[in-house]
C-alpha cells in the first residue's frame, strides 16, 4: 500500500543514510531574492551550480509594484536585493524572468503558470510557501539558505521522510465559499502546529471539484498548519490545466507524461499516519481575528473571549493577540472597520481570484477612507485581467491596480500597512508585524476582501452576492 508521497519519494531517492535520511534528487529549484546568502555560501567554497538548467529565477519580494523601474527604488538595500539575483542567475547560467519580462511574477504563481510545476516532480525553493506547487501533484517544500546552497552545489537534498496525513473535505462547498475558506477552516480545526512533521494530501469531493487555482490556494497555506508540503493527486483537471503551457511536455512527450502522471495517486485503502475529515457544507466564509492563522472563524461569528479559553497559556495568547489587534471580546466580526484592503500574494493573486474580487467590486465603490489595492500575481495574470476588463472594474470602483510582486503580504519592498491600521488581506500570514510594524491583518478570500473594501468593514460576501 503506497501513498502519492511514497511514490514521488521513491522516484527521487539517490541514497539512504544510516540515520534514515534520504538524499533526494531535485527536479526544479525556484529562486527568488532570498537566495543571495546561498550563492554567497557557494562562492566561499569555490562551487558553481551543478545543473543550472533545473533552476528558474525571478525577483518577487523586493520589486516595486507602482512601476517596473528598479532604478527608481529609493532604498539602496532593497534595490540591491532585486539586482543581486540577476547577477547570481547570470553568473550561474540560470534562466531568469527579469522585471521587464511579462512572465515575471510571484515565484509560486509563475511556476504553475509556465507549466514548470508538474505532477511527480520534486521541487524546492527558499520560501516556505513552496508548498503551493503540490497542488499539481508535485512534492514541493520550502528550504533554508544552507539547503539552497546544497541544492545548487549537488542538485540534491537530505530529508527525513515526513509522516503522511490525509485531509479530506467531503461534500459540496456553498455559494460564496472558496478554497481560501477551506484552508482557513482546516487550520482553525487542526491548529498552526497541527501538521508539523507531516506532508498533507488533500482529498475528498470538495478538493477534487476545485480548479487547479483553488488547489494552489489550499496547498499554499499547508505551511500555516505546520506541514512543509501539501499535495493533491493529479487528475484530468490538472492535465487540462497543464496542456500547452510553455514548460509542459509537448507531442509524444505529452502522452508519455500523461501515462506516468496517471499512476501518481494513493492506492485505495492505504492508511495514513493521520486522517482528518471536514464536511464542506459546514464551511462558511472565514476571517482571522488574531495573530496566528489558526485564529480563524466564520465571518458570522464574534471575537472570542479569552475568559472562555481552555487553559492559561491559551488565555494569555488570546489576550496578547487581542491587544495587538485592537479588538474587544464579543465584538461581531462584521462590525470591524478596515483601513486597507490587499488583494494579492502567492495565496490569492491568480486570475480566478481577481475575477471573484471583481465580481463583488463591479458597480460598487470602495468605501470612504479605505485604501484598496489589487496586485496581480504575475505580468501574465495582469495582462489576462486587463484583456477581460477587470482592471477597469477595479479602477472604476476605486481600487489601485498595480504591478506583480509579493507586495503587502510581507512588505519588504516598502508596500506596508501603517502602524495600528487594519487590513483585510488575501495573503497567508497574520503574524504581528507581518504587513508592517503594528499592522493589523485579517486574512480572508478575494471575494471577502472585495466585500470589505466596498463596505468599509469585514462583511459576509454572501449578503452582497444576494444583493442585500
Amino acid at each position, binding site marked *: 500500500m503506497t501513498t502519492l508521497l511514497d511514490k514521488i519519494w521513491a522516484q527521487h531517492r*539517490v*541514497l539512504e*543514510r*544510516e*540515520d*534514515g535520511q534520504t*538524499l533526494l*534528487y531535485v527536479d526544479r529549484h525556484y529562486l527568488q531574492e*532570498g537566495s543571495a*546568502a546561498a550563492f*554567497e555560501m557557494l562562492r566561499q*567554497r569555490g562551487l558553481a551550480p551543478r545543473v543550472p538548467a533545473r533552476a528558474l529565477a525571478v525577483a518577487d519580494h*523586493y520589486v516595486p509594484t507602482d512601476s517596473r523601474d528598479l532604478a527608481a527604488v529609493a*532604498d539602496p*538595500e*532593497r534595490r*540591491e*536585493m532585486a539586482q543581486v539575483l540577476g547577477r547570481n542567475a547570470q553568473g550561474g547560467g540560470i534562466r531568469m524572468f527579469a522585471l521587464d519580462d511579462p512572465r515575471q511574477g510571484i515565484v509560486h504563481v509563475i511556476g504553475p503558470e509556465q507549466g514548470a510545476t508538474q505532477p511527480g516532480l520534486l521541487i524546492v525553493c*527558499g*520560501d*516556505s510557501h*513552496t508548498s503551493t506547487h503540490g497542488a499539481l501533484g508535485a512534492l514541493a*517544500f*520550502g*528550504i*533554508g*539558505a*544552507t*539547503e539552497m*546552497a*546544497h541544492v545548487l*552545489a*549537488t*542538485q*540534491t537534498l*537530505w530529508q527525513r521522510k515526513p509522516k503522511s496525513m490525509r485531509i479530506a473535505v467531503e461534500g459540496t462547498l456553498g455559494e460564496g465559499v472558496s478554497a481560501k475558506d477551506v484552508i482557513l477552516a482546516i487550520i482553525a480545526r487542526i491548529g*498552526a*502546529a497541527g501538521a*508539523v*512533521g507531516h506532508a498533507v494530501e488533500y482529498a475528498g469531493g470538495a478538493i477534487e471539484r476545485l480548479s487547479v487555482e483553488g488547489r494552489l490556494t489550499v496547498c499554499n497555506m499547508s*505551511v500555516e498548519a*505546520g*506541514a*512543509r508540503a501539501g499535495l493533491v493527486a493529479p487528475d484530468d483537471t490538472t492535465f487540462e490545466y497543464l496542456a500547452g503551457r510553455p514548460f509542459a511536455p509537448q507531442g509524444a512527450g505529452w502522452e508519455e507524461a500523461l501515462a506516468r502522471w496517471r499512476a501518481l495517486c494513493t492506492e485505495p485503502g492505504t492508511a495514513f499516519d493521520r486522517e482528518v475529515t471536514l464536511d464542506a457544507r459546514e464551511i462558511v466564509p472565514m476571517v482571522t481575528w488574531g495573530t*496566528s492563522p*489558526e485564529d480563524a472563524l466564520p465571518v458570522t461569528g464574534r471575537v472570542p473571549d479569552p475568559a472562555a479559553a481552555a487553559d492559561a*497559556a491559551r488565555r*494569555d*495568547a488570546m489576550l*496578547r493577540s487581542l491587544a495587538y489587534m485592537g479588538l474587544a471580546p464579543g465584538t461581531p466580526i462584521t462590525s470591524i472597520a478596515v483601513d486597507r484592503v490587499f488583494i494579492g500574494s502567492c495565496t490569492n493573486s491568480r486570475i480566478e481570484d481577481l475575477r471573484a474580487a471583481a465580481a463583488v467590486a463591479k458597480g460598487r465603490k470602495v468605501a470612504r477612507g479605505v485604501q484598496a489595492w489589487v496586485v496581480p500575481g504575475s505580468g501574465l495574470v495582469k495582462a489576462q485581467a486587463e484583456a477581460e476588463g477587470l482592471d477597469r472594474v477595479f479602477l472604476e470602483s476605486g481600487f489601485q491596480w498595480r504591478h506583480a510582486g509579493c507586495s503587502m503580504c*510581507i*512588505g*519588504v519592498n516598502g508596500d506596508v500597512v501603517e502602524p495600528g491600521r487594519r487590513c483585510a488581506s488575501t495573503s497567508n*500570514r497574520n*503574524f*504581528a*508585524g*507581518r504587513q*508592517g*510594524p503594528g499592522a493589523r491583518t485579517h486574512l480572508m478570500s478575494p471575494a471577502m476582501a472585495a466585500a470589505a473594501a466596498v463596505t468599509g468593514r469585514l462583511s459576509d460576501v454572501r449578503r452582497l452576492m444576494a444583493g442585500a
Partner: protein
Amino acid sequence: MDPFRRLEAVALPLARANVDTDQIVPARFLQKPRAVGFGQFLFHDLRCDAAFALDQADYHGARIVVAGRNFACGSSREHAVWALQDYGFRAAIAPSFGDIFHSNALKNGFLPVVLPEAAVDAMLGALLAAPGMRIAIDLERQRVDAAGETCRFEIAPFAKHCLLEGLDELGYTLSQVARIEAFERR
C-alpha cells in the same frame, strides 16, 4: 561551524506557543547583509515591550531559549537561526518546532531540543519562578538538566555527529557525487 557538545547557561523563558519567524527577526531586516550581525534584530518588535524578558538583567548572557509549541513556525528565513546565534543563543527547547527552522538550525550548529509538552511546561514554570536559572544540555548523552529534573531527548545520529564535530553536510554529499551521477544517468 562551531562544535556543540555540552552547554550550561542561563535560559530565556518564552512561555507562548507559535512564536513565528517574523517575531524572531522581522522581515524588514532581511535585506541587511549577513555580516551586519542579526543579533541586533532578534525579537526586535517584541523588545519594544519593556516587560519582554530578553533585555532584563536576569537574562544577561542567556544562551538557551525555552518556548511553547511550534517555536519558529512560519517562513524559511535562515536569518531566524542567525539572529539567535548572533545574539549568543546556541540551543532552543520546545515541544515542537517549525519544520524548516528545525532543519536550518541543525545545519548551523544550533541545537533544537524537542521535549514533551509537560516537561517544557514544568521547565518554563521553574524558569519564571527563578529568573536567571541555568539549564544544562549534554548533547553526547542526549539529556537536559533543569531545576533538579533530567529529561532525555532524541536526535538523529547523523545530525548529532555533525553538531558534535562541527561538520556540515555538504562535504559529505560531495563525497557521494558518483551516486548522484549514477542517478542522473538512469
